């Protein structure tokens, strides 16, 4: 095939990259909110709620994201709702993120020394006040590096939305490759774009982890 890869193709890839960012942002915000609820459930005082949340997390973490995506895509279609691929992708990414972020954040909450909670209680704060004013700020500091690390995961996960036809960066690359048949070039450029989007976050997460470890000594 002799169709030359030119700048309009590159523009199409950029268009796809933009939608990658949009989808990532949506999924992260929704997934973050859901993950926060999962975290609360996992640290709840009620054993039943903790168990239910644990089962939920185990199931979601043990299911491939692609399968989750198909379930969301076909599942909603069953109810007669015309599901645009973007929505199916966002929902499946949100569910996936809720489980992983929930577990990460639960770990961070548990990493705050117990003595902090005891000190707060000794000052007559309620459990919720102690949580919001004392535990959460400290947990949030601990949670920042792994959360940023998961944002990278999320960005990469959006590539699966291409499978249900949503035009983000990977789908754009596939479409272009189908006409130009230059996979090394096309997927190479797409990969580089993903790298440019992800690497700053990866580097940031690492530097956060270093400062955090130094600060805690």
């Amino acid at each position, binding site marked *: 095939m002799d169709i030359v890869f030119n700048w309009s193709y590159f523009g199409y890839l950029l268009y796809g990259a933009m939608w990658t960012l949009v989808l990532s942002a949506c999924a992260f915000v929704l997934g973050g909110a859901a993950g926060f609820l999962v975290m609360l459930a996992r640290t709840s005082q009620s054993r039943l709620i903790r168990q239910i949340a644990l089962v939920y997390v185990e199931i979601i973490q043990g299911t491939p994201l692609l399968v989750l995506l198909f379930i969301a895509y076909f599942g909603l279609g069953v109810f007669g709702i015309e599901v645009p691929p973007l929505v199916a992708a966002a929902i499946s990414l949100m569910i996936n993120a809720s489980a992983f972020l929930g577990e990460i954040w639960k770990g961070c909450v548990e990493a705050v020394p117990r003595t902090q909670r005891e000190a707060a209680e000794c000052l007559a704060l309620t459990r919720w006040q102690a949580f919001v004013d004392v535990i959460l700020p400290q947990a949030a500091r601990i949670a920042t590096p792994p959360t940023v690390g998961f944002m990278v995961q999320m960005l990469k996960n959006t590539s699966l939305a291409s499978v249900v036809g949503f035009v983000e960066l990977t789908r754009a690359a596939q479409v272009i490759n189908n006409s130009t048949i230059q996979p090394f070039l096309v997927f190479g450029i797409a990969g580089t774009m*993903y*790298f440019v989007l992800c690497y700053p976050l990866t580097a940031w997460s690492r530097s956060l982890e270093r400062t955090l470890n130094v600060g805690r000594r």
Partner: protein
Amino acid sequence: MVRSYRTGGTGQDGHVASTRRGAARQADPVRYDFDFAVLLDYWPDFLAGAWVTLQLTFLATVFGMAIGTLCAIGARGKRRWLARAIGIYVEIIRNTPFLIQIFFLYFGLASAGLRLPVFTAAVIAMVFNVAAYCSEIIRAGMDTVHPGQIEAAQSLGMSTPTIYWDVILRPAIERVYPALTGQFVLMMLSSSVASQISTEELTAVANNVQSFTFRSLETFLAIAPMYLALAALLKLSFWGIGLLAFPRRRRLGTAL
């Protein structure tokens, strides 16, 4: 007398097939007749798909572990050019999606004239992917070995390869074993992506089945627990291997 060809059965006048096939109907948007029974016919295919998934996982685990260990050693070694090259490789893998990696490998090589069988391409892509993560994990494990022990081993006259194996790698891998096995389980789950280059693993089989039966939702709902079972099987196997490989842990039950 209308013979309903859909039921394919004896003509029951005026009766339309009660089992729905095909996409959702406008008539009853909320109610949906789940039909898992139709999937039972395909259980040999599901089993075959699961077997392919396990094979992919096994090969990728073995080779990924080997290459990951070599990369960890290289990354901590004295040859700066090697450490930098490994660092670049790891960063590329960690910052690009697996789907892109597998497309790049499979379609790229095909366009260069090398048409790999899809199983092989999937294994290679999975190996490159998991080896990068393993190398980081094992590297962190190797960093936990106290330099005093290396000095002690040197002072006993041990050679460098012996020191690497007996004093550095063995305790390092014992320490990071949970993180490593967790990574392998994640890799098994991401093998579903190989369905996109037509590797006949479990997700690809599900895709095929749902295209025959039109029972998309049921099919994918059915393989989710299959993956959970595979993950449980994998975790159990790694736990058993850990008991065999790490007698200290077996006897004392404590972390190293």
